[in-house]
């Protein structure tokens, strides 16, 4: 029916006037629509054969070429019979008939037609010549037809075949010598190019080979035969869209000496492409003797592919695919441990990513391990590795999906880490240690788990075990040292850190901790009035400091400054103290910074303020001189370091100090302020303990006046505004602001800002969604719904109303952390030792 309708429509659409028909046929030819042109010329030829037949033949020739290019052999057959009637000796027709025979695998008939075409000695074109050469070159067997060939063609054909024979014997130079006499005008010139390309390929001259192959005309056998070579040299990118790679699988396998896989692969590839994944596997499984296999080679690569392909198969299909792999493995008679291992392993790996069935994951992995043990050595090691792997999965932190966390409702709560399945993780790590008592990774993973859940007793116990079994475990020694420092077991901690430093003397983290613990010990000896021990501790610290590093812990001048302060606390050591401070000043690069550091530290060590009056005077002098942001940034950096470890309100003297520095910063705000100084100052001004939004806004404006599109300062501006005017209804506007910041940050390559803005954006999105749901259930809100004075969410003692949307509130994503390039260094000795305990012996 459909066919009839189509015919009817076609007739209706044909214009009746020959002029119109001719015009339409002409434009169809122009646009490459030869099928339509053919229909039109057929009508015209019926009316005036003399005038329109040549044009019809020409269009049919073009259509033939087009169809052959697309390998539509059925259509070609129909067209050939039509053209045969009109022009039986048409060269394109003859060429097509030859190719048609070749496509049917009838090499002899193709060769016979080729010989006949040569002997016709009539109008030949390049397509006909190419087809003759292709037919003769691929007809290798002894043929009577060849005897009828003109001598020159017969000679050249023999040369082509001889060259191909030479190639197969790896006599590449001889092969090239054979084809050398074949000229450019010869019908075999394409084959000469092909042979040159093949020889270059086997000689590893890829560029040369690709150039030769690139000259081959499209649609010829030589060109077809060149593609597998080209893919192996240049990859599938080299392949034009018209040739699907799957069509070449057979050729590729033959070329790559994988003939036995060729047929099977073609079908398996087809099944894979039509998403019949199980059937594709099944096809290889039942047709290849060595599949799946762990023996090296193509089949091993295919094995790895099929057992890892679950990741690219969508959801349920992946599950049924994996179940099939397991069934196929279990059905097999005999052990087939490798196949069973691969199938269960694939299922376990898939379950880890897709499912939440922890116990099932353990069960399947244990099964996989049992199969692995049957094929591989090192069973204990493998079991330990798998248990550690599972444990690490189970002790992953669960994402915090509390949308209201954004508003800081939970800010007073200590952020607790929720682990996926801590209990099972612990079991896995213990099983790993049981399987391989020397599994360092198992012990470290267990330690990591206890650190995450914050179980101090277990952490210490595990650390002791690790250090006992692995005395060279630097990280464990370091952690043990830190834990000792935390609980004031300073001598023990020092020993751990000393051992760690013997393993890696240049590790800055170790050096810093060691210097800190020594200072802490020295400070405690000061309180115990034990001068010798104090100096001994400081000398130990000195050995790990550096003259060149400007660091408050391991920088030598800062250690000397502390030393000077401690000396001042011993009776009769004032002179020594002064000399030590001189030494510190001589060793430092920035005397103002050292003076300020000395003064601040002395205040914290509760030394009489007058003792370091000179240092204070130097600072006062600098502050009284012309104000500049760089000095301001330096001063606030030290102040930030001081308050970083403070968990209560600053003492009065420090509060006054902060106040006076803040006044200085306001006066120092000048347009020539450098970005890095402004950033330090803004970060300081937005911190809770030193907050002064007036300073933050001043410096943000200063930078944005000069560079309005600076992503970092636009982000700071966003943060500073967020504290003042946030309301749920304004969140959309905030989202737009964030979008603009993200775009700018991307343009400026500022990854930190990109990430922070992105995180905040998703928080806002989550919150908006939560509020919308809230509205749906409870109706539209007004402010009172959220900011009720009696709201239990807030601390009764809250004295700062503005703090509702505190910048440091937990889980808001708006924290400054991570955005500040100059993070305050934790000054353990500045704060922790106001009332230190004595070191344990």
């Amino acid at each position, binding site marked *: 029916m459909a066919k009839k309708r189509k015919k009817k429509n076609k007739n209706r659409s044909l214009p009746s006037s020959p002029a119109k028909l001719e015009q339409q046929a002409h434009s169809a030819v122009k646009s490459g629509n030869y099928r339509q042109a053919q229909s039109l010329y057929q009508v015209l030829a019926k009316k005036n054969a003399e005038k329109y037949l040549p044009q019809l033949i020409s269009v049919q020739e073009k259509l033939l070429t087009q169809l052959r290019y697309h390998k539509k052999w059925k259509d070609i057959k129909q067209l050939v019979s039509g053209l045969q009637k009109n022009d039986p000796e048409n060269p394109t027709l003859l060429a097509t008939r030859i190719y048609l025979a070749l496509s049917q695998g009838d090499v002899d008939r193709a060769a016979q037609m080729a010989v006949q075409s040569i002997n016709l000695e009539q109008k030949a074109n390049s397509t006909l010549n190419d087809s003759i050469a292709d037919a003769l070159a691929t007809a290798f067997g002894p043929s009577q037809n060849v005897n009828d060939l003109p001598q020159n063609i017969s000679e050249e054909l023999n040369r082509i075949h001889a060259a191909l024979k030479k190639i197969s014997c790896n006599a590449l130079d001889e092969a090239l010598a054979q084809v050398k006499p074949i000229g450019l005008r010869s019908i075999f010139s394409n084959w000469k190019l092909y042979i040159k390309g*093949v020889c270059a390929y086997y000689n590893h001259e890829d560029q040369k080979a690709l150039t030769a192959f690139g000259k081959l005309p499209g649609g010829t*056998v030589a060109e077809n035969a060149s593609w597998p070579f080209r893919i192996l040299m240049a990859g599938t990118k080299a392949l034009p869209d018209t040739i699907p*790679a799957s069509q070449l699988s057979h050729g590729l396998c033959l070329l790559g*000496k994988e003939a036995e896989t060729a047929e099977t692969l073609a079908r*398996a590839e087809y099944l894979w492409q039509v998403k019949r994944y199980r059937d594709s596997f099944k096809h290889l499984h039942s047709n290849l003797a060595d599949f799946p296999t762990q023996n090296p*080679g193509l089949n091993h690569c*295919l094995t*790895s*592919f099929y057992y890892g392909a679950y990741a690219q198969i969508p959801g349920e299909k992946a599950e049924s695919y994996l179940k099939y792999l397991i069934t196929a493995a279990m059905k097999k008679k005999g052990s087939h441990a490798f196949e069973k291992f691969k199938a269960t392993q694939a299922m376990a790996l898939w379950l880890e990513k897709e499912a939440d069935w922890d116990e099932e994951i353990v069960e399947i992995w244990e099964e996989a391990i049992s199969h692995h043990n049957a094929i591989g050595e090192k069973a204990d090691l493998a079991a330990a590795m798998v248990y550690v792997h599972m444990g690490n999965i189970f002790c992953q932190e669960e994402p915090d999906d509390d949308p209201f966390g954004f508003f800081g409702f939970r800010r007073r709560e200590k952020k607790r880490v929720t682990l996926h399945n801590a209990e099972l993780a612990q079991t896995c790590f213990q099983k790993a240690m049981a399987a391989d008592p020397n599994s360092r990774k198992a012990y470290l993973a267990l330690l990591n788990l206890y650190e995450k859940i914050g179980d101090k007793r277990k952490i210490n116990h595990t650390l002791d075990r690790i250090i006992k079994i692995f005395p060279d475990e630097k990280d464990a020694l370091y952690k043990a040292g830190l834990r000792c420092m935390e609980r004031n077991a300073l001598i023990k901690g020092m020993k751990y850190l000393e051992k760690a430093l013997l393993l890696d003397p240049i590790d800055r983290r170790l050096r810093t901790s060691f210097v800190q613990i020594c200072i802490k010990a020295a400070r405690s000896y000061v309180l115990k009035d034990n001068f010798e021990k104090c100096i001994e501790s400081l000398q130990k610290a000195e050995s790990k400091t550096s003259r060149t590093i400007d660091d408050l812990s391991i920088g030598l001048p800062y250690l000397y400054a502390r030393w000077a302060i401690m000396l001042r606390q011993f009776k009769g050591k004032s002179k020594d103290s002064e000399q030590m401070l001189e030494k510190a000043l001589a060793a430092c690069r920035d005397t103002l910074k050292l003076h300020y550091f000395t003064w601040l530290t002395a205040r914290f060590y509760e030394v009489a303020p007058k003792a370091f009056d000179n240092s204070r005077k130097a600072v006062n002098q600098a502050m009284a001189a012309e104000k500049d942001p760089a000095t301001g940034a330096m001063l606030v950096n030290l102040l930030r370091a001081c308050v970083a470890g403070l968990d209560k309100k600053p003492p009065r003297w420090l509060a006054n100090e902060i106040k006076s520095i803040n006044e200085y910063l306001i006066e120092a705000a000048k347009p020539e302020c450098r970005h890095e100084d402004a950033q330090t100052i803004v970060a300081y001004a937005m911190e809770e303990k030193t907050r002064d939004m007036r300073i933050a806004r001043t410096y943000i404006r200063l930078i944005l006046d000069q560079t309005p599109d600076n992503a970092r300062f636009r982000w700071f501006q966003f943060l500073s505004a967020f504290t003042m005017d946030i309301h749920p209804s304004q969140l959309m506007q905030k989202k737009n602001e964030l979008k603009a910041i993200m775009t700018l940050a991307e343009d400026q390559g500022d990854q930190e800002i990109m990430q922070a803005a992105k995180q905040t954006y998703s928080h806002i999105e989550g919150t908006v969604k939560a509020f919308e749901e809230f509205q749906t259930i409870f109706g539209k809100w007004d402010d009172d719904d959220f900011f009720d004075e009696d709201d239990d969410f807030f601390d009764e003692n809250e004295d700062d109303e503005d703090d509702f949307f505190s910048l440091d509130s937990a889980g808001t994503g708006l924290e400054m952390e991570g955005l500040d390039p100059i993070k305050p260094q934790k000054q353990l000795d500045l704060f922790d030792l106001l009332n230190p305990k004595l070191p344990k012996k």
Partner: protein
Amino acid sequence: MNPYDVLGIYPPADDAAIRARYLELVREFPPERHPERFAEINRAYAMIQDDEQRLRHTLFPPLPEEKSPLEVTINHLRKKRDRVPMSFDEMKLYLQKCAMD
């Protein structure tokens, strides 16, 4: 990526053999001239350089980068370093198959 294929060395090769092969390849494909290949060789070596890594690779193999069996075949064949010509019979078969396509 199959690290064994990339390095062209297969089990039961030991640490020394794998390292020797790696160094040979690094010399052949220096980073200045073959940055991609060099990176691939490095990645492959890191995956199988010692017993523990090899076991890890067996237990937790990386997901295949290829999207189909044919892609796997092409990648595998491309990594073959020896190019051995087809026998004359294979060549005939090959060309006649190409004539049919």
